[in-house]
């Protein structure tokens, strides 16, 4: 595995392939499709580094992020998206949500 993230975040490289996904639709699909234990492992793997990652990214121009920086942003976005599953529902899906699913029709670029 090469370095796909900014320097100083090598601990998070292992999550890039599965979770550094550029659209919310892909991130939500990953939350639903990955085994629940993987979702929890990802959350637990991200959590100790998240505050440092936010501080690092805050030092950059949000409208001119490099490819490595965008991957780090996408990992944090995935962490947010799985946090409800891990912290509230204890399962991938929202309980009682049945087949309900929202299509994303507009999403700001990063």
């Amino acid at each position, binding site marked *: 595995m090469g370095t796909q993230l900014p320097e100083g975040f090598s601990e998070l490289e292992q999550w890039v392939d599965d979770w550094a996904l550029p659209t919310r639709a892909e991130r939500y699909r990953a939350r639903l499709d990955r085994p629940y234990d993987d979702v929890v492992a990802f959350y*637990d793997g991200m959590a100790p580094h998240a505050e440092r990652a936010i*501080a690092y990214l805050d030092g950059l121009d949000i409208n001119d992020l490099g490819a490595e920086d965008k991957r780090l942003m996408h990992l944090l976005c995935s962490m947010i998206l799985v946090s409800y599953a891990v912290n509230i529902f204890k399962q991938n899906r929202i309980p009682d949500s049945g087949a309900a699913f929202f*299509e994303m029709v507009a999403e700001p670029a990063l």
Partner: protein
Amino acid sequence: MTSIQAKLATGRGKFTTDYPDLGTGPVNYEDSISEEFFAAERKAVFERSWLCVGRMERLSRKGSYFTRELPGRLASIVITRDLDDNVYAFHNVCAHRGNKVVWQEHPQQESAGSCRAFACKYHGWRYGLDGVVNHITNEEEFFDLDKSKLRMPPVHCEVWAGFIFINLAAGASGATGESSVPVPLRTFLGEGLLGIEAYPFHLMTQHYGFSTQIKGNWKLAVDSVCEWYHPPYVHGRFIDPDVSKAEKMVPPVDSYHYDLFRPHMLTSVPGPPILPPRAPGSAGEPRQDQRWIYKLFRAGLFGPDDVPDIGPMPDFLNRGDIASWGNDQFWVFPNISIQIWARNYYITYTYWPQTVDTHIYEIDLYFVPPANAHERLAQEVVVDSTIEFAMQDVNTIEATHSALKTRAQNTFHLSDQELLIRQFHTVIRDTVAAYQSGEDRES
């Protein structure tokens, strides 16, 4: 009463009794399950009311356009901005042989872009940005064409506070046939809503849009977000997995504000206080606890904790002066709610009936563009929280609709905090009745 509840309580009495015309009796929901009512409602409400079809940001420059396929085959329209910045809406139908003029790849999908003229893909007729024909292929081969009257049929269109409204009533200027000009949009909105235009919507261009089909009548979906009775049950896990604790966390019923200005209405909602600024590195040990996530990213369901500056708050917000104000939800009759949040962003919820049993539900969130990574991530938390809550509401609507359809029960009971539901169904029924009796029909 818990300390949160004691802090927010006002001791105000009931709201419903302020509106004696609405009564306090039980209601039935035949209006949400009857095929016959649905057909009448479509004519009386959706073919005659101002309907919001999008924001002006979608027409970002001269020559911009977008199409809308309004669900339930209500209409297929094109909305444009011409070179003089006039905004037009017209039906997406060629005057030659009825082909859909503006589409890309898939005729049923919406499209958007920028151009100087629309060319029909069938025989090359061209239309200006005002929908008027400006080129007919081999024009001399036709018989007695009056080119000045050929156009894509116009639709009434007005813009207010950056929201584009259309009205499908027959007889827009230039159309043939009898005219039935609707009341001007501003008259329709009235004093209860016009004050919203002081709000700086134009600063909030960071847009997230969602859409879903719900297997339930559209009015039941409106009902589900008109009251604050359901959160400890539908959304209990977000508040506290123990329902008895969740019940104690929600604000007391008299801490909300309701205002009815027919046909529109307003509910104001209290919200949690903003988290104090946090020193770098002080988010604390990671935990599997959503409160830690909210602290880490400095945001939650009620918005970001680092609130962008958009100038002073317009007077018309929080007009009921509730404590710890969270948001105002303005219901613009018949099918859109504009929810303005204390933390300087807004959400619109739009409901488009397809059949008596299904509708399309659109949620659009708008923020001030983030200045840095943590503001962007905070917005992601707000978006994701909103959608997690909405997903729970969606399935409840499907459950309600399927149960109502059995007609095993026909009378239902509304409490004081369900006042807006009582008003909403009353206005819809009255509108349908007026149309059917011809009172509202003018030449």
